């Protein structure tokens, strides 16, 4: 009887795990399958012919995919620089200085997330059009940075708050100026959190679609836009391969977070 119960329990657990794995891995497996399917049509459950033709097409040096990958990475790098240049001072101020209306500031950085993004980006596109930066990399970077600041400011504030004040005072105490203390003690200790926020902004920029669509098209084509065009054009192979390429940095980021970010930094996000 006992054995039956435990066997039933094990079966149940296995079923749950399988269902969970299917939900997680199913779409990914589908992507992987599509990326190597040269011909696949109903009623077949699996591709009719396999091959790497589309991989070659995507990775051809003259192909659209490589060009838009380059654009995507370039925009993402610039976005990280802009976001960190703002979020390091802002995060430090929010974590350390006694700001009046500190909570209001924190919420301010959340505001862009509070409204339907399409409505916002249509208006942003109108303003950028008047400024003449619509369809430029600068315009796209600004849109991505505004979006990324939400995370980077909050994470940077948490990273600075997690640095023990006594560590800074110890440096001041034996003769370091406030600026020197910041660069030799505070910033290095907050660095893992800052790097994490930078990577996060990088990934957000790489994935960003709506803003790029309204502000960048048609001059600026990033990878997600290419994916969109390919999928709309019925080219599931290119769409799948693009999606898989976009997946790589996300996985690397997860590994980084798991490996380097201290739990006490994560715990202070938004605190």
């Amino acid at each position, binding site marked *: 009887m006992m054995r039956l119960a435990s066997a039933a329990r094990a079966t149940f657990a296995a079923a749950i795990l399988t269902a969970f794995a299917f939900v997680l891995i199913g779409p990914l497996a589908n992507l992987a399958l599509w990326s190597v399917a040269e011909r696949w049509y109903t009623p077949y459950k699996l591709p009719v012919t396999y091959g790497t033709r589309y991989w070659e097409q995507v990775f051809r040096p003259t192909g659209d995919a490589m060009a838009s990958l380059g654009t995507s990475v370039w925009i993402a790098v610039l976005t990280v620089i802009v976001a960190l240049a703002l979020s390091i001072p802002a995060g430090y101020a929010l974590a350390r200085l006694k700001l009046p209306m500190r909570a209001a500031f924190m919420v301010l950085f959340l505001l862009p997330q509070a409204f339907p993004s399409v409505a916002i980006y249509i208006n942003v596109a109108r303003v950028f059009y008047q400024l003449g930066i619509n369809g430029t990399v600068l315009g796209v970077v600004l849109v991505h940075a505004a979006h990324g600041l939400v995370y980077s400011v909050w994470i940077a504030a948490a990273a600075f708050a997690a640095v023990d004040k006594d560590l800074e005072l110890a440096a001041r*105490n034996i003769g370091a100026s406030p600026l*020197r203390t910041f660069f030799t003690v505070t910033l290095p200790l907050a660095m893992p959190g800052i790097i994490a926020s930078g990577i996060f902004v990088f990934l957000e920029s790489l994935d960003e679609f709506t803003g790029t669509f309204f502000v960048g098209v048609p001059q600026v084509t990033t990878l997600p836009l290419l994916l969109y065009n390919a999928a709309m054009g019925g080219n599931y192979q290119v769409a799948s391969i693009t999606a898989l390429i976009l997946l790589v940095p996300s996985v690397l980021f997860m590994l980084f977070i798991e490996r380097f970010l201290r739990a006490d930094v994560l715990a202070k996000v938004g605190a």
Partner: protein
Amino acid sequence: MRAERQQSLRSGEAISVRGLHVGYGNTRVLHGIDLDFSPGSFTALLGSSGCGKTTMLRSLSGFVPVQSGSIMVGGRDVAGLPPEKRGMAMVFQSYALWPHMTVLQNIGYGLKLRGVPKAEIAAKVAAMLEFLGLSGYEGRKVTALSGGQRQRVALGRALAIDPGILLLDEPLSNLDAKIRMTMRHEIRAIQQRLGVTAVHVTHDREEAMTMADRLVIMEAGRIAQVGTPEEVYDRPASAFVANFMGAENILPLRVEHSAGGASLFAGDAAAELPPALRDALPAGRAMAYFRDDVARLDAADAPSAGDLVMAGHVAARAYPGGVYRYRVKTDDCEVTVDDATRHELGAKVGLRIPVQRLHIFPASEAGLAA
């Protein structure tokens, strides 16, 4: 290096604090402190938590802004200066070692700030580590050190800049008991050898007494008493100090003056008041404070022989080692007494208290301590 250290024997600086008021927002923490620290002295700021001792130390180091008053060091008022301009080195309770730096980088930080060449920093840090008994630890990560070793590195970092003043903020409270004992003596010995002026904050009475030349007992943001360990222990200036220094037994008394002298009454017991105390105590109610080891247990009907002898019975007994510790109940009070002989619970005893060893204060003053 040894010669160099010897030379800095005169490096201790004097501090003179006048009318120091410090507070956070609307809460006053220090209410006008006047205190002098002579060069090369070792002073312990002692008090229970919240008495302002840590705030006092942090206002000396410049971490807490001073509302009014002056802190004179070497002929100039440093009260308005930022921490980096005060020439005081602090050892933190948490050690506050930088986890992203090695031992060498931690101790050498202050020297690097002062533009000392790399080779010289390495040599000085090596000498400092030898001085602290940590030779060869330069390349270690501070996170890989034990508590006692971190403590030493923190001390080394503070001493590396040859400060005139060393501030110690409960530096031993995170160590286990055995290492704490050794570190007490080490810190004291190093301070003596370097001749630096040390200010030590602690809530541990024994630590303060064994390390410092002079104790400053603080109470609610004011100085309750300043003196050598002997003075403060044997002649507490107030009921609070007596109580804080371990005289935890409280005995309500009545003082009566007569033509020939003065007498003490506690319940049915009576004793002559020694001449020295006669003038200090007005007639009326008073409170006596005494330590566990002052009183003795005697036969219930023992003769007074100048002492206060009160009838009571044993309410509880423990054996902490060496002597028995009794809880004795009399009609008026309940006190703790150490005695070498064994008495059974409930036994009728005579509680013998030598009048000379009591710290007696008029009830009006003593009320503050309770």
